[in-house]
């Protein structure tokens, strides 16, 4: 594999999914080069073999038989569909984070990245993650569209203003991997870089303890005070008790039934959409009274409320309280297809 990567100019692979993607890459590119060369060689050979012998030379009227045409078209179609099937399966793995992945929050603005961690700390130029652990990034922009791109991880996703998008990876090797902004965002677009720092488990534990010592407030704690200040808790409870709006308790990653009969999984994208556009996906059985928080909640506050909701994922069940149905599927392996779920509306 390393030889193929060197040949194609691919960066070293840093995640569990990179190998199979690179394998498909090599196959698709080989087919591309072979077919372009074959077409060229065939045309060239015909030019030599059937060169004009004398001026005004005439030719017979020859057409391809229909069967021949259909065979060629069918053959081409089959190989294209094969690429699509394999590629789409891989794509579903790339966009579906395993349940229980650690989450870091990414805020993009012209022209820098900010990374926030659930413990309340943040970094600017590097995203620090432990090796072997699936990490999901919940990303939002404060101005124009950006795109988070880690070539070594074969991942990329646009970072939009006003809406959270997610991307995930499970790094396999400790090291430092560059992050680029891939969506043109203005003058210093090419300077909008950072890196993912993948640490071994021991180094990561050291890194974390050195930060906790500084005594920061965790994002979930910040979320609780933001939720109180912004009036969220007037309608949403934290202990599972029924109220005007759905409770935050055990809400995260549960399956929610909507007023129009659809069901959605309450992930970062759904929860933030509900804050910014509450009427878009209204939960069944609740009145449409929630105001929009678009332009009211800053990205940092939004992330903090998300963390608050997530911290209540495995909360105790209060007696006599009916809870939303929890998704009970085990966290899938990285190699498995988990089915497509919408990353965004």
């Amino acid at each position, binding site marked *: 594999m390393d030889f193929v990567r060197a040949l194609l*100019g*691919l*960066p070293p692979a840093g995640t569990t999914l990179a190998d199979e993607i690179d394998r498909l*890459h090599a196959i*698709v*590119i080989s087919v*591309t*080069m072979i*077919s*372009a060369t074959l*077409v*060229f060689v*065939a*045309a060239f050979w*015909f*030019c030599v073999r*059937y060169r004009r*012998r004398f*001026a*005004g*030379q*005439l*030719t*017979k009227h*020859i*057409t*391809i038989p229909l069967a021949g*045409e259909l065979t*060629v078209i069918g053959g081409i179609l089959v190989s294209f*569909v094969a690429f*699509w099937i394999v*590629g789409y*399966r891989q*794509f579903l793995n790339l*966009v*579906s984070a395993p349940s229980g992945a650690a989450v870091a929050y990414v805020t993009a603005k012209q022209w820098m990245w900010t990374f926030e961690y659930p413990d309340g700390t943040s970094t600017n130029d590097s995203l620090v993650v432990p090796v072997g652990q699936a990490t999901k990034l919940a990303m939002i922009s404060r101005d*124009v*569209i950006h*795109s988070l*791109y880690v*070539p*070594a991880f074969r991942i*990329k*996703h*646009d970072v*939009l*203003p006003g*809406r959270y998008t997610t991307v995930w990876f499970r790094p396999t090797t400790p090291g430092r991997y560059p992050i*680029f*902004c*891939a969506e*043109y965002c*203005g003058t210093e*677009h*090419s*300077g909008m870089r950072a890196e993912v720092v993948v640490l071994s488990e021991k180094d990561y534990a050291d890194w974390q303890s050195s930060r906790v010592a500084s005594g920061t407030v965790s994002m979930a704690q910040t979320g609780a005070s933001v939720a109180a200040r912004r009036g969220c808790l007037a309608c949403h409870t934290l202990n599972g008790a029924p109220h005007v709006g759905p409770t935050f308790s055990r809400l995260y990653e549960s399956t929610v039934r909507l007023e129009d009969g659809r069901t959605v999984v309450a992930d970062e994208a759904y929860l933030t959409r509900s804050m*910014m556009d509450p009427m878009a996906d209204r939960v069944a059985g609740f009145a449409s009274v929630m105001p929009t928080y*678009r332009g009211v909640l800053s990205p940092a506050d939004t992330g903090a409320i998300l963390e608050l909701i997530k911290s209540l994922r495995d909360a105790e069940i209060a007696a006599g309280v009916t809870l939303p149905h929890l998704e009970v599927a085990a966290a899938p392996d990285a190699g498995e297809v988990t089915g*497509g779920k*919408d990353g965004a509306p």
Partner: protein
Amino acid sequence: VTATAIAPELADRGGEIEIAPGRETYLTAKTSFLSWALTTDHKRIGVLFFFGTSLALALGGAFAIALRTEHLSPGRTIMSAVGYNRMFTLHGVTMVWLFMIPSIPSAFGNFLLPIMIGAKDVAFPKLNLLSVYLYLAGAALVLGGMLVGGTDTGWTFYAPYSSVSPTAVVPVVAGVFVIGFSSIVTGLNFIVTTHTMRAQGLGWMRLPLFVWALYGTSVIQVLATPVLGVALLLVGIDHAFSWGMFDPARGGDPVLFQHLFWFYSHPAVYIMILPAMGVISEVVCTFAHKNPSSYKAIAYSTFGIAFVGFLTWGHHMFVAGMSAFDAGAFGILSMLVAVFSAIKVVTWVATLRRGSIALKTPLLYVFAFLFLFVFGGMTGVAVATTSLDVHWHDTYFVVAHFHFIMVGGTLTGWLAAVHYWFPKVTGRLYPERLGVVSAVLVFIGFFLTFFPQFLLGNGGMPRRYYDYPPQFQTLHVVSTCGAWILGATMLFTLTYLAWAAVRGERAPANPWDSRSFEWRAPSPPPPHNFVDPPSFEHGAYDYTRPLETAS
């Protein structure tokens, strides 16, 4: 001597043909400035478009050379980041809307469509003149926008950056908006002309394949361009008056702009490539002296491309926040559109088989086209493979892909057309040996410029990067050298063509001994295309017997 076939042996020697005394051509009928500025002759309008688009090519090419030169080293080489961002925007806008979209349809289509169907002119000659002035007005707005500071949004004008960019966005989007109308008017004219003005007995399945290509292109121009107009109008309003159409803080949606933009701009790549495909069909048959191996496959696949091309725009947005279901659907539809292109390629190559092939400059350009188009097209299949696109999206791989297929295809198709129809338009022959040199060097220059960019993209080099990490420098330098070769070759080509247009040998009416209908008119044609009413009894691709001379 009038309209008819000349003995081929005479053609091979270049001939000592003088235009019969007293025979008027479209060039000599009237010569005043106003006779050109207010002309409604489709041939003169074609020539005007040819000069306009060639100038745009020179300008866009000069921008490209400057951009490539900047990339000789990381950081600043010859310009600032602000200058670089404005220049790649102008390079894109100029090449896409001022060169590639009108290059073949508005110049060669205008010149040839009526002759190919045996008509005296297009259906609406005055609208045709209007399309010239709309093009010029749009070009003036775009280039005027450059003079008042330029714009730095990229040719894609992505919101919300285009709403807040501190540069002259409004004149540039207004210019493109106006050029869009030129495109619509030309498309409408071609559709009506093809439907209503075909000579008697000239049914659809007997038309030259270039006409089919123009017809398919025109349908896309008429249906897709209004959507571009809407999208750009909204961007202009947003920029000028801050209506917040694409600003999420005020309820707008930035991704909506991308849907609107690509709904036009994906079909637009077929506006660029379909006419080139039409040229290839003509050139292959003429120089192979053979009927197309499947006329129907080429004609119908044109419509497959034009129709399915409307359903693939989402493949530009796999990582822009669309659902996984949408990504899958757009992925498979993109594969489907590639099949239609593959059908054409197979048919062209099969046409060469058992032909009687004369390897002249236009056919050499067909070879360049075949390689660039197949390689570029297959990398299109690669980027339509969703998981691979995640890595390649917005990198140099995509830049290389669309330059191979869209620019490589259009440019080599255009150069094939320029050489192939040169005797028809000017009445003179281009120097064949210089043509061969130019075709070979264009291919080498193009390949050297863009092949390294595939590797850059594999390595993770994002596009639209002023500055880049040092490990990418070697490939950037190779690419820049290729661009210089390509630029120098283009200058060389335009120079010998300009010389030949004035001083070249006189051409016979039909120097390639072609059966296609436009060669039955004199070269250059008289003001109303034909001296005697043309006969279309002999098919456009019937090489089984000599072409009977009409008089």
